[in-house]
């Protein structure tokens, strides 16, 4: 119906391009992109790996070594400490040697949760240069 009317109009009057099909197409595209859009908020902790898999000794820049045992115990200087004491230890070390980083060595069976907690505490203590390795 609409098309016929359009055709009748042609002689004499100005007719623009019919935008409707283009609009249909664009709308479809729009709906596709709205549906497929995923606004992910990915959060992560950056930790470096000491010379990945080559097995080279860790850089001497890491002065504080924090060990995590398979049972989730945390050892600093061969002394077992609580998770809440990690930050204080890191702050003390950081005040003495501000340029040095921290090395977290976890047992291969330790949980990722405890590793992330320790690294989080270290970063709260002011040291951003954290490297992480696991025993085999």
């Amino acid at each position, binding site marked *: 119906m*609409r098309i016929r*009317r*359009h055709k009748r*109009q042609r002689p004499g*009057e100005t007719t623009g391009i019919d*935008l*409707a099909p*283009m*609009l249909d197409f*664009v*709308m479809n*595209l*729009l709906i596709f*992109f*709205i549906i*497929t*859009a*995923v*606004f*992910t*908020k*990915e*959060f*992560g*902790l*950056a*930790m470096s*790996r000491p010379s*990945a*898999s080559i097995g080279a000794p860790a850089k001497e820049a890491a002065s504080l070594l924090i060990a*995590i045992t398979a049972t989730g115990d945390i050892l600093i200087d061969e002394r077992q400490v609580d998770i809440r004491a990690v930050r204080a230890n890191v702050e003390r070390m950081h005040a003495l040697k501000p340029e040095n980083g921290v090395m977290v060595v*976890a*047992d*291969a*069976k*330790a*949980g*990722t*949760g405890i*590793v*992330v*907690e320790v*690294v*989080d505490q270290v*970063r*709260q203590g002011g040291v951003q240069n954290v490297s*992480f*390795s*696991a*025993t*085999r």
Partner: protein
Amino acid sequence: MRHQRQEEHVGIDLAPMLDFVLNLLIFFIITTSFVKEPGVSVDRPEALTAEHRESGNILIAIRSNGDIWMDRRQVDLREVRPTVERLHVERPDDTVVVVGDKAAPAGILAQVMDEVKLGGVEEVTVGALNAAGK
């Protein structure tokens, strides 16, 4: 159509609507990021200092039993490197986020991070929930 009471055909002017819709379309095209979902959900550890990763587009999940998932399928540790290489070639700007379950073994986490680095992606982060709620 309702406005056709007069003799001529007067349609609604679609141009402004089209402008608006095209703008919306361009916005969605630009903001769309094709994240490579791992395909499983894991119990993420929480951290106060977790940073927002702008282009954390390749996600690797490690389940509590040590299974590695990426690109919606379970992969072997040896498959991580070629898969990362392939995805890295497709979109070189991508970074990798390794999302380990709270109970996932740290040894697997370290090995996966190594494989990702060998696959050519230097920027690897360990996924966490931001406990600060930012």
